[in-house]
């Protein structure tokens, strides 16, 4: 049973560029959440997708956007990259809301470096 997978593992971008990160949820999960973990910090919630719609959003600017596909996989897009966007981006999956107090399963993350 494959867990949560993310691609790419590492990414180096230049300030002002755009980036797309990808995530495939654990088998049987249909809810995907994205988190940003800056160096030395705890993960910060970006947004959550369920049934191809953004259901909840954290305190992140509109430069951060996402998408969920019919197969439940998801993308995180960041436009106009800033140096401060350098972080580990974590994807987490879980069963649908209302199905119980399930924990979220995290992928290995994508390390984004903005130069």
């Amino acid at each position, binding site marked *: 049973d494959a867990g949560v997978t993310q691609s790419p593992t590492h990414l180096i971008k230049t300030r002002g560029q755009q980036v797309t990160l990808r995530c495939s949820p654990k088998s049987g999960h249909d809810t995907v959440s994205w988190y940003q973990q800056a160096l030395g910090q705890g*993960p910060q919630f970006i947004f959550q997708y369920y049934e191809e719609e953004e259901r*909840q959003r954290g305190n992140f600017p509109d430069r951060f956007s996402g998408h969920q596909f019919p197969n439940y996989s998801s993308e995180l897009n960041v436009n106009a990259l800033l140096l401060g966007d350098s972080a580990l981006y974590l994807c987490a999956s879980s069963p649908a809301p209302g199905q119980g107090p399930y924990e979220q399963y995290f992928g290995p993350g994508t390390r984004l470096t903005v130069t």
Partner: protein
Amino acid sequence: AQSVAQPEDQVNVAEGNPLTVKCTYSVSGNPYLFWYVQYPNRGLQFLLKYITGDNLVKGSYGFEAEFNKSQTSFHLKKPSALVSDSALYFCAVRFPSGFQKLVFGTGTRLLVSP
């Protein structure tokens, strides 16, 4: 607003000794509480959760956590530490209803010496 505090940046313990990693939270109502562990260059691995019921929750790798509602705490414990337990530990909280945003603490680095 929901918040989670992990008052210790680092905890040092000798192998074989008991360990405690502290967590307090500030959330109204009855939140769900979680502990995750992160090894270098890895994502987060789920250790255990408290939903309701018995205040002592047992999880993976011999870890357990004690929920204390009056002190709004959820401390992680292990009776006998292993060198391989050395990692970064995160406490997290979420509301029981609606969607599943997790609010994390800043993390505590656990160093277990041989």
